[in-house]
């Protein structure tokens, strides 16, 4: 018997199945010291132990049986399930914008294989239409799988591939681009694409989902509708992240790729614009701008694709008492750029100074960003700040740490000349550093203030 008929089983459990000649998908009657159980043998998740066999009983529930209690087992039938997502021809509606959806492996629309627990991604236009028919009222859709990786495995290679793919689509005259993406590193990709795809004539919208679409309360369908609406109909020709505004099914927010950050591990409304207000609100029917100034949609195809990335840039998250050898080790390993994430206005302890000097002497490019995320680096206030600047650390304004890392990597991919690097870092391409912070930017609801509590009660979270 080949291995595939015992999907996922290993060790002792595998031996038991072999001994009684019962296959995965076989219906079985199991006699145990705890009584008789009947059902269909299911595949076992790779990481689960080898002491249990999983069966689906007639009422639809799954249970596990301890192999040490099994006294006999018999295969009474065999019924292999076959899963696929239905495809329906995505209708072409004259007059609707053409939108391209790039797949990167994030499961923006998917269905759970209900026996194995595996997620089957839906991706072809036909599949998407089968799952979210409302999309056909928004745009004429075309899809392309650029690659398939998990969000945490997205990296420089993928940024470059995406940037080139975006360039090609614009060349072909697309009206808007949506990129389906896992949410964990959505904001890194947002920053990278902002730097790599400049002077965009059409919207490029990154979208994900915090709840996969096999769940009835998933945010995936609504996020997709919002993203398609923004890509096809919006006037904002920038790289944006489109995700839930409130956790309620009400509207999405469009965030600049350079100012957005994932701020909650599991909330639907996890993405927040930091240090500024979001670009716009989007619902199924319209885009409601929040910011007045943005890059407008154009009819030309004059996008500049700059697909560069240096892979020897790192980040150093400072903590009290940090030892200088951490920095020395980075320099020794050949890192050319380091983004400091400092405390308060942008500080690290004095013990690091000699290491900073050594790094500077070796030509390492160092920039300061903030653990507070909100606000500006300000190194003139205290002596320590002035000391550090003297030793070669350049304050990066209100650039978010991850964005600074992306930008320095992108710059070092093009030049290592210190003057150019500094100038390019501090010259904003799309608001990664802003000259002013609006008074209503810092809207983090921490509670405790009666007025805020009253407000939260009134609006939908």
């Amino acid at each position: 018997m080949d291995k595939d008929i015992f999907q996922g089983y290993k060790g002792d459990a595998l031996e038991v199945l072999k001994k009684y000649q019962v296959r995965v998908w076989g219906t079985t009657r199991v006699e145990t010291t705890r009584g008789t159980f009947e059902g269909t043998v299911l595949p076992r998740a790779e990481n689960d132990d080898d002491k249990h066999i999983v069966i689906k009983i007639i009422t639809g529930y799954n249970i596990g049986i301890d192999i040490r209690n099994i006294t006999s087992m018999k295969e009474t039938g065999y019924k292999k399930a076959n899963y696929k997502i239905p495809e329906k021809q995505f209708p072409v509606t004259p007059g609707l914008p053409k939108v391209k959806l790039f797949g990167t492996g994030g499961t923006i629309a998917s269905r759970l294989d209900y026996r194995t627990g595996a997620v089957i991604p839906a991706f072809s236009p036909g599949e998407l239409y089968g799952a979210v028919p409302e999309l056909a009222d928004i745009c004429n859709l075309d899809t392309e799988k650029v690659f398939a990786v998990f969000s945490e495995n997205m990296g420089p290679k993928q940024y470059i591939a995406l940037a080139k793919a975006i360039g090609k689509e614009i060349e072909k005259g697309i009206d808007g681009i949506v990129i389906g993406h896992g949410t964990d590193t959505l904001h890194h990709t947002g920053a990278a694409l902002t730097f790599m795809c400049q002077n965009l004539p059409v919207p490029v919208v990154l979208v994900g989902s915090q709840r996969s679409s096999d769940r009835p309360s998933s945010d995936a369908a609504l996020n997709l509708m919002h993203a398609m609406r923004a890509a096809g109909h919006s006037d904002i020709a920038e790289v944006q992240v489109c995700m839930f505004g409130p956790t309620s099914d009400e509207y999405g927010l469009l965030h600049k790729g350079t100012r957005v950050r994932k701020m909650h591990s599991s909330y639907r409304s996890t993405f927040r614009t930091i240090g500024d207000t979001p670009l716009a609100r989007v619902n199924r029917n319209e885009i409601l701008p929040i910011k007045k100034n943005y890059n407008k949609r154009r009819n030309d195809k004059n996008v500049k694709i700059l697909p560069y990335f240096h892979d020897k840039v790192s980040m150093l998250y400072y903590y009290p008492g940090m030892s200088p050898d951490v920095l020395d080790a980075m320099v020794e390993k050949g890192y050319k750029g380091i983004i400091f994430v400092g405390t308060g206005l942008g500080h690290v302890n004095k013990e690091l100074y000699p290491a900073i000097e050594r790094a500077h002497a070796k030509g390492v490019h160092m920039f300061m960003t903030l653990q507070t995320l909100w606000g500006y680096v300000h190194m003139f206030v205290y002596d320590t700040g002035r000391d550090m600047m003297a030793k070669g650390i350049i304050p990066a304004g209100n650039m978010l740490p991850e964005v600074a890392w992306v930008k320095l990597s992108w710059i070092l991919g093009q030049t290592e000349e210190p003057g150019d690097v500094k100038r390019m870092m501090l010259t904003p391409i799309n608001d990664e550093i802003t000259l002013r912070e609006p008074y209503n930017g810092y809207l983090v609801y921490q509670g405790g203030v009666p007025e805020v509590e009253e407000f939260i009660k009134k609006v939908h979270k």
Partner: protein
Amino acid sequence: MSFNPRYNYGKSLKESGWIPRRKAKQQDYNRIGFMSGLEVHQQLLTKEKMFCHCPAGIFNHHDDFDAEIIRHMRPTLSELGEYDGTALMEFRTRKEIVYRIKNETACTYEVDDTPPFPLNSEALGIAIEISLLSKLNIVGEVHITRKQYLDGSIPTGFQRTAIIGVEGELAMPKKKIRLIQLSIEEDSCREISDIGHRRIYKTDRLGMPLIETVTYPDFVNPDEVMEGCDYIRFLNRSTGKVRTGMGAGRQDVNVSCRGGSRVEIKGVAHTKWIPELTHNEVFRQWSLLRMRDFLLEKGIDKNNWKTSNCEITENLDFSKELLKTASGKGIKLIAVNLPAFEGCLSWFTQPGKTFKNEISDRLKVIACLEKPNCITSEEIDNPLDDSILSNVREQLSAKEGDALIIFAAAGEDIKTALETIEERCIMALEGIPEETRKSLSDGTTIFERVLPGADRMYPDTDTAPIPLEDEYIKKLESQLPEDIIDRYNKLKDWGVPEDVYTYIFSRNLFPLMEEIIGKTGVKPSYIGAFLGHELKFAEGQSKNEGEFNYRILLRLFEFLKEQDYDFALAEVMIKDLMKHPKMEFESILASLRHKRVGRDEILARIPFLKQKFAEGKKEIDELKQRNWVMGQLKASAIGNIDLQELSKEI
């Protein structure tokens, strides 16, 4: 002769063979093939909820909340790439679901913004104990499964649930109930309102652990279903680890008649409602099957049967009520012709209800049309004017023998309403639709949802399976209470009157009763009757039901024994004790002006009293005399002498 709805109702009622429950005998139920099974839900007594650390058992008022969240439920595809019937129905209603959240009782887990924390082990232990008592085969590994619910009652769109045991049984005095399975699951939201396209829930109860015991459909009459439910409850309560009180126990009752379908009556709050509900449901099905035969005899072909409709724009006076309840922009009055359906809309289904209600209930749930939502050509109480009817019929080119429904709605709801009416009529030609129904206190039911299909179970990818080792099971086994049926037999042997068993089991008083007997030597038949009569009566009179700790009774009987009082004194004291559970027993006696009187002193008064009774009487009725003397002595005798003994002495 023109069609008479009232006459038709009576005629169809007779045809269905419906009789009041009190007149129904087993052979009546056998004749129509009564079949029923139970799904009994019981909340577990844990400190925290099942998958998060919110407190369990704290409830908020409707208007007491900190935030509102809005969700829409979207059907997901089944394994065959199709949508489940219920799922599609819920999607058609386009409901906006609003959740009211109170910080104290719900966190981000309840509203599906945080993945589950590990399963509450206290709840798991209780569920296994009850599974062992239910003689179920305990699984080797617990797998959390997602059971989809698209009505919004759970913000995730599914309930996390897991099987603990399968294939068990529970002994009742005269019959054994076979059990299919027992699962542990999280409780759902409580509905606040459901009006138009907006349904509001509160999240306090959401996520509390409960178990569901599912029986085979072995019950053959309505009373037996109730008895089965009681015994499952007794078993659950015998552990002392389940919640009691309003809403802590609820049951779904599955009912069908021969040739009918499984219909689930949801959320029955009181077991005593079960007999009337199941009785009426089985006859509803039976009557609808008679209606199907009636329709098929007319030669209707269900594959080609279609409704037609038109808008009514003139003489709208008759529809005032409909227009008042309708909502939305651009409300229209629509008339629907049901070919050859004359006789159906006044066809008996349940006491006081007709096939019209089947349609009206669905219009409310599926098309979101608030009631009253339709008028028909077969109104029994306020029939439509002939002139209106003939006008509309003409507009629809209706034929003789057609029936008519008129409703008011706006926008998309019109389409949904038309589909809903046609769909329900076609179902009537086929048989009984599988559905869940809501119970009403008058013993009738109304349509709630389409019965979900079997393919709505998905593995939960957020939780790991939990192995149940033999050692752990053995430990739980060693601390189990004895079986209810054994207790039942003991009570019987002791000569405890049968009418008090339900009270003793439902309050789980048996262990206390045994303890009182063991420690004070009181006669079991006496203490049994005391609990089931005196205590129950006092509790019924008292306002602080539920707050009284029954263990005080042990101290009371010990006190009576120590003080050498007769135990019957408890009967006098219980009312005050219930009112003031913290009061000293001595003080209660003092407030009752109870005096300790010697046995001999009491007996010594008998001759005098006998004489007093006899004064001026020619003939003395001995029984009357004894009763009179007894009455004179009772107040001072109680507690001081055994009353039976006193009676004998007289």
